C-alpha cells in the first residue's frame, strides 16, 4: 500500500493521549489514592553478599503508625518463587531475601505504616545482623573455578552456556585471507524512567479479588502474581487504565507486586509501594545488560565479511527473571543488515553480586549492534578502506528480500542502499570528512561515526524455546474488541497498559482508516485483566504491528458484516455491495444505499431484515498472532524470530576537547525506515528519544560499582541522564519500505534510535582518537575515561 491510499494513517495527526498529559491529568499509579492505604518502605542489605542471622523488629513496631514488618522467611513460606525464564530451579528469586542476601541494596524487610514517612522512620529502626559472605562482581571472575558462588545450590555461577553454529563457520574462517578479533563491552546501564515503579493493591475478601494498579509493562503480569500468591488467576484484577510514566522495557516489578499483593491479603488493607529513586536504582531490579563480547570476523581483502564468531558474556546480577533471554533475541538479527554467511554464537550468562536486571529497550539488540558495528569499523581500518564503503559491500541488497539469515530468520523487506543514499544526499559525506579534518587542523579531536542497524519488531518469544527447551511458546498475540452500539457509536478495546507509545491513537487511527470514519470518534478503552482478551503487551517493538493488526482485522469484520446486512436488505448480491465511509451502496445503482444509522438499526432492532442465521448486534473480536510465528526452533538452533525489520543508518560528527575529554556531538543525521508510519509524530518522537537514550548509554550512564560491591551510581547526581544540553539537534531522514507481512506495511519504531546511536557514537569517538593511537571499545565512554586516555597518549 502506498501512502496515497491512506486517509488518516501516515498523516500528521495529533496524539489523543497528549491532552490529558499536558493538563497533569494522567492517571499514574502514585495518583491512585485508596482510602486507608498503607505505605511500604524497604530495609536493604548493606553488603554485597551476606547471611541474615537475625532480624529485630521490636523497635520498629513501637513507632506510631507502623502496622507490620514483613521478613523474607514469612514471605517465602507464604508465596511461591517468582517465575524464571531459564530452567534453573536452584536459583530461586523472591521479593525479599530469604536467609542470604546476594547484592548490596537487596530488599530484606518490608515495613508497612500509615504514611510513607512513618514507614521510612521504622525502616531505620529495624536491627538486622549479617554475616558477610564472599562475593563476586566481575562476570569473567564469576566463571572461574573457586569463585564465590552467588547461589550455592546451583553449583556454579553460570546459568546459560549455549553455543550455536549456523553454517560452515570453520570452513569460512579457514578460507578467508583476513581475520580480526576484538573485545567490546557494553556497560551496565538501563532505561531509568522518570517515574519509578509503583504498585497499589487491595484485597477484597468477600469477592476474592486482588485489585492491582501498577506502573507495569510486562506480559503475563496478572498470572505471575496469581502463581506466586498461590491464588487463581481469576482472583487477580489488574487495572490497565493506569498511565505508565516511561518504561522502555524495564517496568516489570513482579517482585514488588507479589510483595504488595501478599501484604494486602495479609493485612486486609490497601497497600502501596511507590519506589523512591534509591529503591528504584538499587533494589528495584531494573538494571540492564552488562555484556562482554569477543568478536572474531573473517573477511577478504575487499572487506567482504564471510563469517563471524561472537561470544557474548552477560553479567546478570544476582537473580534471573527474563533477563537471560536478552542473549536470545539478537539471534534473530545476528548478522545485522549484512550478508554474513555463517555465524558461531556462544551465549553465556552468569550471576554475580550485583543488582538484578530486567528487559531493556531492544532486549539485547543494542549491545549486539555495538559489537557488530565496531567490527565493521575495525575491518575498514585494517584494510585502510572507507568505513561506509565496507558496509556498502556487505549490505543485503534491496532485491534480495525476503532474506534468510544463517540463524534461520527471514528479514521481511528493506532498501538499505536507498536509506543511506538519502542520508548522504542530505549530508555530503565528503564535506563531512573535510569538516572533520578542518576540526583536526584546528587542534580538536574530531571523528565521524557510522552505524547501520536493524530493529527487529513485532516481538514473539521464540527465543524462549531456543534457550530453554522446556518452553514451547511459538507465538505471541494481541487483540482488539470492537463494538458499535445501538446508537452507532464505536468503542474499541486494548488489553494492556501503555507507557507513552500512543496506543489509543494507534487503535483509533487504524479503525478510522479501515472504516473510513474520523478516528477521533472511535472511543478506545482499556478493560481490566479479567475482562481482557490476550495481549503480549508493548514489548519487542510490536504494538504498531500487533495491536494495529488486531484493530485492523476487527474493523474488517465489522465492515464485512455491515456490507452483508446491506446487500441482503438491498436485495443485491454481496459482490455488488460497496462499503464507503460507513454507508453501503449498490455498485450498479449508487443511489440504492443504506446508511450507517440504518445498518446499525437493522443489526440492533430489525432481526427480520438480517440475513438468516446472522448474529444480531455489531461486536467483533480479533486475536492477531505474530506474522511468521507458529514454529519452534529446529534442533540445530534455527528459528524465525521477529517478523519485521526496520532499518536505520546513523551518521555522526563528534569532537572531543583534547584537554578535558568532553565529547560534543556536532552533527547527527539518521536515516530511518520503519515501513508505513501510522502516526509520524509518534515515530519521530520514538526515534529522537531512542537516540537520546543511546547517547546516554554511550557517553554518560553507568551503574558503577566499587570493589566492595557497593553501587556508587545510585542517584541522578551519579547516574547521568542526558539533559537538553547533551542531546543535539538530530535530523531524521525518512524512507518507507513497507513490510509485506503487516496490515498497513508498518514495522516497529520504538527501539531503533537506541539500537544504533551507541554504535555510531562509539565509532565516532574511536575515529576521533585514532590519530592518538587509541582504540576504546568499552561503554560508557565517560568524560573522565576519555580525558585520562588522551592525557596518557599525549604524554607518551
Amino acid at each position, binding site marked *: 500500500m502506498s501512502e496515497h491510499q491512506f486517509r488518516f494513517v501516515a498523516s500528521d495527526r495529533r496524539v489523543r493521549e497528549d491532552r490529558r498529559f499536558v493538563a*497533569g491529568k494522567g492517571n499514574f499509579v502514585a495518583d491512585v489514592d485508596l482510602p486507608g492505604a498503607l505505605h511500604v518502605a524497604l530495609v536493604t542489605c548493606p553488603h554485597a553478599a551476606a547471611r541474615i542471622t537475625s532480624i529485630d523488629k521490636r523497635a520498629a513496631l513501637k513507632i506510631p503508625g507502623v502496622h507490620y514488618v514483613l521478613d523474607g522467611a514469612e514471605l517465602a513460606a507464604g508465596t511461591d518463587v517468582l517465575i524464571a525464564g531459564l530452567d534453573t530451579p536452584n536459583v530461586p528469586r523472591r521479593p525479599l531475601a530469604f536467609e542470604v542476601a546476594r547484592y548490596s541494596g537487596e530488599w530484606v524487610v518490608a515495613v508497612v505504616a500509615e504514611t510513607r514517612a512513618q514507614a521510612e522512620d521504622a525502616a531505620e529502626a529495624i536491627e538486622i545482623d549479617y554475616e558477610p559472605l564472599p562475593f563476586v562482581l566481575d562476570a569473567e571472575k564469576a566463571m572461574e573455578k573457586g569463585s564465590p558462588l552467588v547461589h550455592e545450590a546451583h553449583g556454579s555461577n553460570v546459568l546459560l552456556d549455549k553455543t550455536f553454529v549456523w553454517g560452515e563457520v570453520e570452513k569460512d574462517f579457514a578460507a578467508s585471507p583476513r581475520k580480526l578479533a576484538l573485545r567490546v563491552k557494553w556497560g551496565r546501564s538501563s532505561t531509568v524512567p522518570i517515574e519509578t515503579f509503583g504498585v497499589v493493591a487491595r484485597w477484597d475478601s468477600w469477592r476474592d479479588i486482588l485489585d492491582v494498579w501498577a506502573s507495569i509493562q510486562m506480559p503475563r503480569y496478572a498470572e505471575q502474581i496469581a502463581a506466586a500468591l498461590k491464588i487463581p488467576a481469576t482472583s487477580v484484577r489488574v487495572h490497565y487504565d493506569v498511565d505508565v510514566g516511561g518504561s522502555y522495557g524495564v517496568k516489570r516489578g513482579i517482585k514488588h507486586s507479589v510483595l504488595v499483593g501478599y501484604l494486602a491479603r495479609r493485612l486486609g488493607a490497601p497497600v502501596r509501594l511507590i519506589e523512591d*529513586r534509591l529503591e528504584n536504582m538499587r533494589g528495584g531490579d531494573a538494571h540492564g545488560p552488562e555484556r562482554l563480547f569477543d568478536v572474531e570476523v573473517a573477511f577478504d581483502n575487499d572487506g567482504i565479511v564471510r563469517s563471524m564468531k561472537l561470544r557474548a558474556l552477560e553479567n546478570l546480577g544476582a537473580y534471573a527473571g527474563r533477563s537471560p533471554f536478552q542473549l536470545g533475541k539478537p539471534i534473530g538479527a545476528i548478522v545485522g543488515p549484512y550478508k554474513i554467511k555463517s555465524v558461531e554464537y556462544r551465549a553465556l550468562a552468569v550471576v554475580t553480586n550485583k543488582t538484578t536486571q530486567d528487559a531493556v529497550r531492544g532486549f539485547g539488540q543494542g549491545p549486539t549492534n555495538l559489537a557488530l558495528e565496531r567490527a565493521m569499523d575495525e575491518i575498514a581500518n585494517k584494510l585502510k578502506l572507507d568505513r561506509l564503503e565496507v558496509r556498502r559491500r556487505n549490505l543485503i541488497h534491496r532485491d534480495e528480500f525476503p532474506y534468510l539469515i544463517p540463524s534461520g530468520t527471514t528479514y521481511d523487506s528493506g532498501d538499505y542502499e536507498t536509506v543511506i543514499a538519502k542520508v548522504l544526499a542530505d549530508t555530503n559525506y565528503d564535506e563531512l570528512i573535510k569538516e572533520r579534518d578542518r576540526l583536526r587542523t584546528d587542534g580538536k579531536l574530531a571523528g565521524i561515526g557510522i552505524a547501520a542497524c536493524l530493529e527487529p519488531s513485532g516481538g514473539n518469544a521464540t527465543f524462549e524455546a531456543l534457550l530453554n527447551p522446556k518452553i514451547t511458546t511459538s507465538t505471541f498475540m494481541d487483540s482488539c474488541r470492537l463494538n458499535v452500539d445501538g446508537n452507532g457509536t464505536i468503542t474499541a478495546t486494548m488489553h494492556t497498559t501503555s507507557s507513552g507509545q500512543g496506543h489509543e491513537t494507534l487503535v483509533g487511527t487504524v479503525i478510522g482508516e479501515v472504516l473510513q470514519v474520523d478516528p477521533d470518534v472511535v472511543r478506545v478503552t482499556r478493560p481490566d485483566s479479567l475482562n481482557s482478551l490476550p495481549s503480549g503487551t508493548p514489548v519487542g517493538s510490536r504494538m504498531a504491528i500487533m495491536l494495529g493488526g488486531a484493530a485492523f482485522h476487527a474493523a474488517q469484520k465489522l465492515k464485512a458484516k455491515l456490507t452483508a446486512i446491506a446487500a441482503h436488505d438491498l436485495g443485491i448480491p454481496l459482490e455488488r455491495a460497496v462499503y464507503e465511509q460507513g454507508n453501503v451502496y449498490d455498485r450498479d445503482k449508487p443511489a440504492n444505499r443504506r446508511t450507517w444509522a440504518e445498518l446499525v438499526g437493522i443489526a440492533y432492532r430489525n432481526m427480520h431484515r438480517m440475513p438468516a442465521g446472522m448474529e444480531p448486534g455489531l461486536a467483533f473480536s480479533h486475536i492477531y498472532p505474530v506474522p511468521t510465528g507458529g514454529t519452534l526452533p529446529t534442533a540445530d538452533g534455527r528459528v524465525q524470530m521477529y517478523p519485521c525489520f526496520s532499518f536505520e543508518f546513523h551518521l555522526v560528527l563528534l569532537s572531543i576537547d583534547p584537554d578535558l575529554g568532553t565529547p560534543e556531538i556536532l552533527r547527527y543525521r539518521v536515516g530511518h525506515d520503519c515501513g508505513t508510519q501510522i502516526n509520524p509524530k509518534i515515530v519521530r518522537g520514538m526515534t529522537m528519544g531512542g537516540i537520546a537514550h543511546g547517547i546516554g548509554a554511550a557517553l554518560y550512564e553507568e551503574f558503577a560499582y566499587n570493589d566492595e560491591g557497593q553501587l556508587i551510581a545510585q542517584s541522578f547526581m551519579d547516574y547521568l541522564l542526558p539533559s537538553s544540553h547533551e542531546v543535539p539537534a538530530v535530523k531524521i531522514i525518512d524512507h518507507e519500505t513497507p513490510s509485506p507481512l503487516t496490515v498497513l506495511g508498518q514495522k516497529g519504531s520504538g527501539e531503533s534510535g537506541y539500537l544504533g546511536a551507541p554504535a555510531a557514537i562509539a565509532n565516532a569517538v574511536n575515529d576521533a582518537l585514532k590519530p592518538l593511537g587509541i582504540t576504546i571499545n568499552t561503554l560508557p565512554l565517560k568524560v573522565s575515561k576519555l580525558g585520562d586516555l588522551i592525557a596518557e597518549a599525549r604524554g607518551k
Partner: protein
Amino acid sequence: MRIELSVNGVKHALDIEERTTLLDALRDHFALKGAHAGCEHGVCGACTVLVDGMAVRSCLMFAPQAEGSTITTIEGVTPGPGELSPIQDAFCETHGMQCGYCTPAMVLTAHALLAGNPAPTREQIVEAISGNICRCTGYAQIVEAIALAAERMRGANAPVEPRR
C-alpha cells in the same frame, strides 16, 4: 505546624508536619496530582511548580518554606476543564511528550520562560528546560512546542493584516 499559602489563586491555611515537602503537600493535602515525584533529590525537575512565578523544584522545598507564597501548579495554568493554554496546546501540536510524566513540569517551565521572554532563541529554550529531564522524547518536540507557543502568543495580540 500551621502555614498559609496561596495555591492556584486560592488562599489556604493548613496544619502540616514540618518535614512535609511542598511536593507532598500539593499532592496529598491539595490533591493536585499534576506535580510528579521523579528523583526527590532535585535533579529531574518532574516536580516543578511555580512559586511566585519562578519554576521551582517542589521536592527540594519544605511546605513551611512556602509560607506566604503564591504557588501555581499545572492545574492552575489549565484554563478550564477540557481547555488548554496556548503552551499546552503547542505541546499537543508538536507531540512534545510521550509518557506524560515529566510533561506538567515542562509546561510550567515553559510558562515561566515565556512570561519573562516572549521570543526565546533555541539556545534559551534548551537552557530553560535543561533542568527538566525527559527520558522519552530527546527534547526536540519539546523545544519545538515552546518555540511554537512563543510564536503563537506573540501573534495573539498582533493586528490582523488585511489580505491583499
